[in-house]
């Protein structure tokens, strides 16, 4: 502990506490999740899907390289709090802001010096827990009370807290191949970059945009983005997705977008015990039998058994068999639970964007005829 640092604590709802050092001060509440990615902390911190969550990183050293504006996944950090075994004070390499300074400047409380593996093992045993990071001096009874009164993740609609205020355009890079609408439920920048760099012009829409307004744009396809929270309470959005499905436009759902598609086709979703958060998750493609290592970040999943007869599960998480992708018969629907845009994580699933855009342009060509 250095002079400027303050003693801090992570308190979990089951009563366990871990004392460490607050490297970025403050108090924060959220669902505590662990992420096993060994790099990419800036992408994680700025991923809107982490709204409402305190993220604990399993790789012990954070902040080894500096924070730079180009790799942010959105306009600001979204994690409620951030925990690692150790934070590097001065990053390696040329330029870049020290991670601690970035967290301090952004008012994200951060804790170091705790037995992070012990926390992970606890979460693994009990499932996700609500928790608080606070100065050691904070009144423990007050913290406990607050912990037990804060909402659980199940049933929590968080999309409205992270979506854009108004629609905006992202131009295609190079020759424009198609025009897409993207529902921003907390979209990661790299989804937009992945589409744009492949020649898609994108209109980014606030989460509650009606399907009619969307379809009126004269688009070639719709992308349903990732985002935080439980998909189930988002009933009006699910309705909108149903309308979009009926319009037979090529749809791409990613993460929360995938869960919303699952609900829209009549399936159900459920909360995973502690979710998948990391860049090493194997997804088995049930169509061709191959396995891709993917980036994943989700606490809810589509129940494969709940999907109607016209849907087919096409990808599962090899570790626990949960649904990672499904298709709707005769519809150009691409629905993936994992993150083809990576960022952070492995790139090999980026082909989903190629396949989707091909479907979009093929569809547009047929429609034009």
């Amino acid at each position, binding site marked *: *502990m250095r002079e400027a640092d303050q003693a801090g604590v992570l308190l979990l709802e089951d009563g366990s506490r*871990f004392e460490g050092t607050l490297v970025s001060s403050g108090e924060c509440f959220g669902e505590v999740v*662990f992420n*096993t*990615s*060994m*790099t*990419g902390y*800036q*992408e994680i911190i700025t991923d809107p899907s982490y709204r409402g969550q305190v993220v604990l990183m*399993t*790789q*012990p*050293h954070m902040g*080894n*390289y500096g924070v730079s504006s180009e*790799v942010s996944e959105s306009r600001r950090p979204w994690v409620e709090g951030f925990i690692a*075994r*150790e934070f*590097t*004070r*001065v*990053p*390696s*390499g*040329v330029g870049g802001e020290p991670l601690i300074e970035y967290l301090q400047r952004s008012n994200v409380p951060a804790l170091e010096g*705790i*037995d*992070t*593996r*012990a926390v*992970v*093992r606890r979460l*693994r045993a009990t499932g996700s827990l609500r928790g608080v990071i606070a100065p050691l001096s904070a009144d423990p009874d007050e913290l406990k009370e607050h912990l037990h009164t804060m909402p659980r993740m199940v049933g929590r609609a968080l999309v409205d807290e992270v979506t854009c205020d108004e629609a905006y355009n992202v131009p295609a890079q190079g020759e424009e191949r198609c025009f897409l609408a993207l529902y921003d439920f907390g979209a990661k920048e790299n989804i937009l970059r992945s589409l744009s760099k492949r020649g898609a012009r994108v209109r980014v829409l606030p989460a509650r945009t009606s399907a009619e307004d969307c379809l009126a744009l004269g688009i070639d396809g719709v992308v349903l983005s990732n985002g935080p929270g439980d998909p189930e309470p988002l009933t009006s959005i699910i309705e909108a997705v149903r309308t979009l499905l009926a319009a037979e436009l090529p749809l791409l759902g990613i993460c929360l977008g995938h869960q919303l598609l699952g609900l829209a086709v009549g399936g159900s979703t459920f909360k995973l015990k502690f979710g998948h958060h*990391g*860049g*090493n*998750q*194997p997804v*088995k493609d049930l169509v061709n*039998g*191959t*396995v*891709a*290592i993917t980036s994943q970040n989700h606490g809810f999943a589509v129940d494969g058994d709940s999907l109607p007869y016209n849907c087919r599960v096409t990808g599962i998480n*090899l*570790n626990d068999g949960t649904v990672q992708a499904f298709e709707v018969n005769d519809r150009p629907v691409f629905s993936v639970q994992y993150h083809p845009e*990576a*960022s*952070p*994580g*492995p*790139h*090999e699933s980026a082909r989903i964007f190629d396949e989707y855009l091909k479907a979009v342009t093929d569809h547009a060509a047929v429609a034009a005829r």
Partner: protein
Amino acid sequence: MPKRTDIQSILILGSGPIVIGQACEFDYSGTQACRALRAEGYRVILANSNPATIMTDPEFADATYIEPLVPDMITRILEIERPDAILPTVGGQTGINLTLELHSTGVLDQYGVELLGAGVDALRLGEDRQLFKEAMVEIGLDVPRSGFATNMDEARVITEELGYPVIVRPSFTLGGEGGGVFFNRAEMEEVVPRALQASPAGQALLEQSVIGWKEYELEVIRDLADNAIMVCSVENIDPMGVHTGDSITVAPQQTLSDVEFQEMRDDAFAVIRRVGVATGGSNIQFAVDPKTGRRVVIEMNPRVSRSSALASKATGFPIAKIAALLAVGYTLDEIRNDITGETFAAFEPSLDYTVVKIPRWAFEKFPQSKTVLGTSMKSVGEVMAIGSNFREALMKALSGLELDGDRVQMESRSSDPVSLRRRLTTPNWERIFAVFSATRQGWTIEELHQATEIDPWFLREIKEVVDLETELSCWSATTAPRQLLRRAKFSGLTDRRLAALMSTDHSEVKAALAEHGIQRVFKRVDTCAAEFPATTPYLYSTFGDEDESAPSDRRKVMILGSGPNRIGQGIEFDYCCVHAAFALSAQGFETIMVNCNPETVSTDYDTADRLYFEPLTLEHVLAIFEKEKPEGVIVQLGGQTPLKLANELQAAGVPILGTSPDAIDLAEDRERFGALLRKENVLQPANGTAVSVDEAVAIANKIDYPVVVRPSYVLGGRAMAVCYDETTLRDYMSKATDVSPGRPILLDRFLQNAIEIDLDLLCDGETTVICGIMEHIEEAGVHSGDSAAVLPPHSVSDDLQDQMRAIASRLAIQLGVVGLMNVQFAIMGDEVYVIEVNPRASRTVPFIAKAAGIPLVSVAAQIMAGAKLAELGITKEPKLDHYYVKVPVFPFSRFPDNDPLLGPEMKSTGEVMGISKEFGIAFAKAWIGAGNRLPQEGTVFISVRDRDKPATTQVAREFKELGFQLVATLGTAKFLRERGLEVADVKKVAEGRPHIVDLLINGDVDLVINTPLGGEAYLDDKEIRTTSLRFGIPCITTISGALAAAAAVRALLGGNLSATSLQALDERRKAST
């Protein structure tokens, strides 16, 4: 995809003797492959010339061939066994070179053998630097600019284009052998010819220097369904310019962002796909310019490698085993992850700890060589450590190195401000200590980075350790604040170091830590950062809240391993530890292995029941003992590493199994041992113990020159020498003082021209069984580890052998040996002298076990656990109907400035075994297996010292009879001519030109027999030997070695060498008894 059923039998190629760049990591990978494929029901045929390996134990394959790894011999094995396929990718460069040769001569086609893992094209692409570069450019990857040279003119033209400095990489060599860097024209003239000479293809790559760039390695695996995963990333702390095997490395990589890292990962997959490795692991090396981020591909190995062994241990992902299973058709998603039990091999390990590897060098053995590191690998071993952060892992790894001095002493050696900058700027094996020193002296991170080009991130971590130490020295154990002590322990500082800093003893430190609740806990290596429960107890210690060791209440035994490989303590001791684990597990004990060497089988998580990957220091070992509370600890199998701890462990109340530490001490203690021998009426060379120069001279005068001198308590003849007169003795004594501080120097009368014998036995405290007697081929004075040897003796009478048996048995009983014992005898005339007794495992154990067909260590371990020899059915010495010859291999080519001369200090890194009914054939096999040439015609050059001249006549006569021409220096030639031999003259170097070295360089000599002259003629001699070495001309430096070589040539001329498996030998042995 399910496993293939169209193949039934698979030949696995081992990597041969341990050499620098190819060590026991290939025993680890080969053993894993053998076990995995046999478990799948394939008939496994193994070829490896190295008897010290675990893989060559007969139970690991269906047919085990300890035969030279040369194309002829493999062809013979193919003929006998007719395997369906070969797995060439687990035997290092040796396996690949052999396979490529067998392919190019059409042998593979002739026998219809399929290559598993990687086809010929992929192997060639991975190995041929030119093809590789072209392929990389073709797939759009960046490579350093370069050109190929086959002669100096081409080299000059390429250099003109590239500009200085230039990196030189000879084609098709191992561990960068023969490579180098040149910064100017003069160095070019030196480096390039050496590289061309070293390359079997006479070709070298001259490459734009990326010295100072950051260096990375990615371990990737691919399967038949084209799934690819990255198992581990490794970052070299030493930037480009130092061979990766000589670099301190860290896993996972620490300083790349996700953006940079994922692009590198994409490139790695592109490389493995383009090279066409169908299944299995590959290691791909990258360099990154720290200023611009530009990334270039340096090279790839289309096979498992030293790095993949490290990656396996660092992650818990068994690369070699998985590679073997993929080779027979499985896909990654079909193979279970052993550690979690519930997930599959198709994933990428996530590490929630930091791993540091530090190489172990043996420069002290090669005093004439520069200690500078470059592109040619020089280290002989390595340690790995796991910690919760980089500092802890680094400090643990430094503790595990077992250097002669501790870190503080090493630092102070480097602290001279005049030479400090040079120690930082020129990579050398002590540079890490210089970094500590400089930090302590107030160098800034920027200054250090400028001098070393080490990434500032690592330098800051080191500075944090130094700062902590500085702060600690202001406190006492009772007053130091909790946070400070906590940070100190979290940063890997040992109790002893804390005690020294706070001027107290370590028990007080322990008390303070306990009071503050700062506790060492054990965590599991589980491949997945705790996302899934780990069923496999692969543990490391750190500091934290939660302990995951969950010790059982079974009967258990703890085995202490041998730490990093070094010359004199290598794979043989790992062999012993592994067998003890197997045997005791089979007996129903829970076995606990403690070791820190990532290259070994012992640190495989499925060797012992529980694995603690920890440094072998008192603090770490005691912590494990206190946690596990085993019935006893075995210290006699891991060489000096655990033995050094025995007394302190015993003092701390740890029960030591087997022979008591006191008995081991007695054998090492001159006085006590001398008394025992006198009591038993056993001869030993006259001797004495000296603590000063004058005392040493006085003793030498009394016992008479020549004398063998050595410090007490050393292994591998460290700092041992023969002194022929007072001048050399005084010189030795003046240099010897720092070898073993506080320990005396031992002097023995040197028994000139004596025959040396190794005898190994088993003893249960009451009865003994002799296991084998080995006769050294080199005479006394050459370290037993460096001497060729034969089992059974081929020139010692039965009566003398019986005398030795009786003496050894008596001594074993007197010492109270429970386990293994090795005795070294010298025979002079008809007298038997005892040179030394080692009541513990020694280097000879695996060799004798394999030759005698007795599972020596397994028996020894059971004895230590309380069994009796008779109960185990071991009652009599095995009868041998074959000769088993050991020939050592030497790393001289890595140390070109050094005289390749044998002496009392051990220098060999490994050994091979040759087996035959005839001594000559057995020697020939071993000689060839050790990588030596054995000419069957041509010219033999002879130059011997006077006292060897009489014996030389027979050597000369034998070679003459075999059809060789003889050339000799004037004195030797005259002597031989007088005895009726036709010999041509040649001048010594000092006698004018043309001289012998000219002849050697011109290729006019095929075999050199040169016994050292000493004194003035020494330099002349040395040039002969170093030139022979450079040009690959076999050079024999003892008369007995020369006689054996003559017998071997005779055997070769007499016909082809045949191959026999150990299993077939055993069948025959059983049939005959």
